[in-house]
């Protein structure tokens, strides 16, 4: 019986999970660690397009790769792809030469494309602008990157890999020119979720030995279903920076938590694959290595309607602001390319939003009518000096840094990730003299036959896709009857028609420990409509009560509103700004959430703490009061204010007169 190498894969994006799946299928022991939840890094913040090869017709090698991967993914991951098709459109005045060379390139490579004249284009996409002269229909598609990543992870699990999310690499030891022990820290309570396996997925095993099937988010070892008291607390991760353990100061509580949690763990793998995408340089840095990576940031704008059916791309030299992606009931405008120094160097600026709206309102004038809801930024990385941002390279630290035991993957893309994973896994196998071939292109991803398997895996890894939720809530789908508004099930978020039952369903996953409204939002899409939470965020928060105490409820409300605001800030004009002002008036005015909270003291309490009554306006910061309400700088004596004394109290019912 031969020796099975244990491979540690770092990074839970589409690429890392793809590599883990490939290695696991080839029979290696695989552990994948991801700092946050799966697909929340670069993977979840891109446009989500499955590219057609036509786009790369001028570089035949890349075109062939994209061509075969586009077809392969449709075969093995059709359930994560919406086959919208794509149009590469050319406007009057756009370079004919460029369009012709696109046609020639496709012909040479024998790619199936269809040329459309202006009339035919408009027949397919009536909302396209008047300047469209012709277009090429190409097999672009929209990928749900969250589901694809989880499907990969589930595929890896099925072949015995271990997937550990919320687990961050904090040290990579180098001993005698070899990668040694990797130290990880499991986030003790990433978003306040219960820390034990709840039986939804595969059974957790005894300590995550390589080769054992395990789905554990953690390394605690207490898999008997009992929860360690306090372990569900959110700690320093509470929105608004509020510590939710009320009795201990932040630092003390944090230290206590760490001692108790034993959250550090060591992994001794035979080989390490660093697939942390834009963050790969940071991981390599822990071992003391540099990576030759280039980075750019890209802005995307979400608009409140979807004027196109296909992925529409204006085909011209300048590729900034040229794509409209149909994304459920929204459209996504993308994207920009601004060089940055690294993933922490992203700066969000309104100018990029303006560019997207300006450029794309020429392509689809209707993007101008629905208002821009939000904007967000993603960061991409590719090997320094590569021809295109889609290139990739395997950077073997044995070769470049004289240190055996680790390779970093540079670049790669959503469309090509499987092929990149194949190359990486092949390279690793060669290092161990293993000659098994790649089988990932022939095995459908979990959920292909029965989508429920993928739905369950999404829950298991606690990943939610906004795109899927919308389709799942279509009539006839699972859960739609229970979630429908009715006499006993009121609507909490009108824009998105999210009901109390849905909110409670989203909360129940959390087993009643600390809850986070942002999780509820992702699961239900509540607060993601036109008002961006202005009309419903506080109502969502009220649904958490009394499961959460009022302090936690308030903190998580602040967290939700802060998250909503971050996305809104750069798209505020026209109707969006009007709604923002209405929201401000409601929250700062009607609900008085901006001012410091006021505590009222009874007349007796006020008398104890203050002397005379002249300068009544100056004595609001008194202390020394007794009674049920804690004294604070915001205390004011109730007796100073209008007590309705002018009203005719004699007409009021007297105490004790009530009849039953």
């Amino acid at each position, binding site marked *: 019986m031969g020796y099975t190498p244990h491979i540690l894969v770092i990074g839970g994006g589409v690429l890392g999970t793809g590599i883990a799946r490939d290695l696991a299928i080839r029979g290696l022991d695989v552990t994948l660690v991801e700092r946050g939840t799966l697909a929340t890094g670069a993977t979840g913040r891109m446009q989500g397009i499955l590219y057609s090869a036509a786009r790369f017709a001028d570089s035949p090698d890349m075109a062939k790769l994209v061509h075969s991967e586009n077809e392969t993914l449709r075969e093995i991951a059709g359930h994560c792809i919406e086959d919208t098709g794509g149009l590469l459109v050319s406007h009057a005045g756009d370079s004919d030469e460029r369009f012709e060379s696109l046609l020639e390139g496709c012909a040479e490579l024998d790619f199936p494309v269809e040329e459309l004249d202006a009339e035919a284009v408009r027949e397919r996409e009536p909302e396209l602008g008047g300047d469209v002269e012709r277009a090429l229909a190409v097999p672009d598609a929209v990928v749900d990157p969250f589901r694809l990543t989880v499907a990969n992870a589930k595929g890896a699990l099925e072949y015995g890999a271990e997937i550990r999310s919320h687990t961050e690499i904090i040290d990579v030891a180098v001993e005698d020119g070899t990668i040694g022990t990797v130290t990880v820290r499991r986030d003790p309570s990433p978003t306040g979720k219960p820390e034990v396996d709840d039986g939804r997925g595969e059974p957790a095993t005894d300590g995550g030995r390589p080769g054992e099937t395990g789905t554990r988010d953690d390394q605690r070892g207490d898999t008997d279903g009992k929860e360690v008291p306090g372990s569900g607390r959110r700690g320093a991760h509470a929105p608004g920076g509020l510590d939710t353990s009320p009795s201990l100061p932040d630092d003390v509580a944090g230290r206590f938590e760490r001692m108790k949690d034993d959250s550090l763990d060591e992994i001794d793998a035979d080989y390490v694959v660093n697939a942390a995408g834009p963050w790969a340089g940071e991981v390599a840095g822990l071992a003391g290595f540099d990576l030759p990576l280039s980075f750019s940031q890209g802005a995307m704008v979400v608009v409140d309607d979807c004027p196109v059916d296909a992925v529409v791309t204006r085909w011209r030299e300048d590729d900034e602001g040229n794509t409209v992606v149909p994304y459920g009931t929204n459209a996504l405008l993308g994207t920009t390319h601004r060089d940055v120094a690294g993933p922490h160097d992203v700066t969000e600026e309104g100018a990029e939003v303006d560019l997207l709206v300006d450029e794309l309102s020429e392509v689809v004038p209707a993007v101008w009518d629905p208002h821009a809801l939000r904007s967000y930024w993603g960061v991409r990385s590719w090997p320094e000096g590569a021809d295109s941002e889609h290139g990739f390279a395997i950077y073997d630290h044995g070769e470049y840094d004289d240190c055996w035991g680790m390779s970093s993957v540079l670049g790669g893309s959503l469309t090509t990730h499987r092929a990149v994973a194949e190359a990486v896994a092949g390279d690793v196998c060669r290092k161990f003299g293993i000659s098994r071939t790649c089988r990932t292109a022939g095995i459908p991803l979990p959920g292909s036959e029965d989508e429920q398997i993928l739905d369950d895996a999404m829950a298991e890894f606690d990943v939610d896709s906004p795109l899927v939720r919308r389709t799942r809530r279509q009539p006839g789908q699972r859960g739609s009857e229970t979630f429908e508004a009715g006499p006993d099930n009121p609507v909490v978020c009108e824009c998105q028609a999210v009901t109390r039952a849905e909110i409670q369903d989203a909360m129940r996953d959390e087993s009643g420990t600390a809850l986070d409204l942002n999780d509820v939002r992702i699961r239900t899409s509540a607060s993601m409509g036109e008002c961006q939470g202005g009309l419903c965020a506080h109502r969502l928060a009220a649904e958490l009560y009394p499961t959460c105490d009022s302090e936690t409820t308030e903190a998580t409300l602040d967290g939700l509103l802060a998250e909503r605001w971050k996305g809104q800030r750069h798209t505020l004009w026209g109707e969006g700004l009007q709604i923002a002002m209405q929201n401000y008036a409601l929250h700062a005015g009607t609900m008085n959430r901006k001012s410091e909270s006021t505590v009222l003291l009874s007349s007796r309490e006020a008398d104890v703490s203050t002397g005379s009554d002249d300068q*009544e306006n100056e004595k609001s910061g008194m202390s020394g009061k007794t009674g049920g309400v804690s004294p604070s700088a915001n205390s004011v004596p109730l007796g100073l204010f209008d007590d309705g004394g002018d009203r005719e109290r004699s007409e009021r019912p007297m105490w004790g007169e009530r009849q039953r």
Partner: protein
Amino acid sequence: MTDVAVVGGGLGGCMAALTAVRDGAESVRVVAPSPERYRHETGLIDVLGYVPDRETPVVRLSFEMRRLPDDHPYNLVGAKVVDEALETFDDLFVADDGLPYERGQSDRNALFGTATGSVRPTSRYPESVSAGLLSDDRPVRLVGFEQLTHLGATLVGDRLAESVPYDVAATSVDFPMTPSEYPPVVEFARALDRNEETADGTPIREALANEIRPELDVEPRVGVPAVLGLEESEAVRSELETDLQAEVFEIPIGRPNLPGMRLGRRLFEVLEAEGVIVDEGAPVVGVETAGERIENVSIAEDGTETEDTEQVRADTYVLATGGLAAGGIEADREGVSERVFDCHVPHPDGRENWTEAEPLGDHPFVEFGVNVDGELRPCGPDGTPEYDNLRAVGRVIGGRDFVAEQSTGGVAISTGYAAALSALRDES
């Protein structure tokens, strides 16, 4: 020929029209009012809730107004005019048959609980909320409705209990009808107005009292979400009070805000009774000017210029279209403008400078609006009036966060009143 044409019909516009017609203008017209605006109004009249550098609410209004800067609308019109204006409002609505307002001890703020359980100062308030005064130390029972998620009664009750030195209890009951739409705010109110029969034949007011009664303990006052009727609100509430043998009050819950809608309806009834012409729903589609004067504004039913377009000629015009929230101030990606007369609206260059990072930060956009001189005339960048015969009232005036200051109602009333007086002075 019209003496005064008021463009927009919010609280400030209505006050301007009423003041003008009562103080001698022969013909007053309100053009392009949007009743929609009142769905956003709480119906509570805030005069001054907070002043700079103090976290606690203002107690005495006249005392604290002195702390406001010279260019605050209150100081532009003067303390005396502010007093007169508020008195005028009080005379209209205190003990009004249709919509009684309270002014309590009029120079002292009153405190109320909000739909999120905060404490909030206000100055004048409809009788329907008055039993909810927090500055009254009797115990309170809040009763939410299961079908209405706008008021999470137990959360609000518990939060208020942390803020007041007496008992606040809270429960939720079923509102005794099945909503056909969400949110059912207006639907509930209509059913109570008409006292419709519920499924078992009980009139709905009685059925509601039957739901609430078992929840009551010793509390002498009961707070419910503000859905107690639109046209018959006083009758609805009084019947509930009799049935429950307790005072009943409403808690404003945000859009649609019934107490605000009631105020809007009542204001327009009063306008009509005073002989003010109201051109409902016809937006302004054009403005003609000659030199420093506005000659006329054109209004059209469907909002586009056609043969039906009517020209309204007036000696003076009052701009009362509201701020960003009401659409009187508009922004595109490049800049900010005033919608009807294109008056100058100061604003920082670059959209990134319009907001702050915190959702309820001190956003510059909140202060977008026109600058006015001592006569409330909108001014250009050089500080001189844009037009001799145009005055601005209410939220279209910028330069200050009236929302956080909790002064929107008082500013609307004072500037509306002052603008009318100033316009009439001009004429004579």
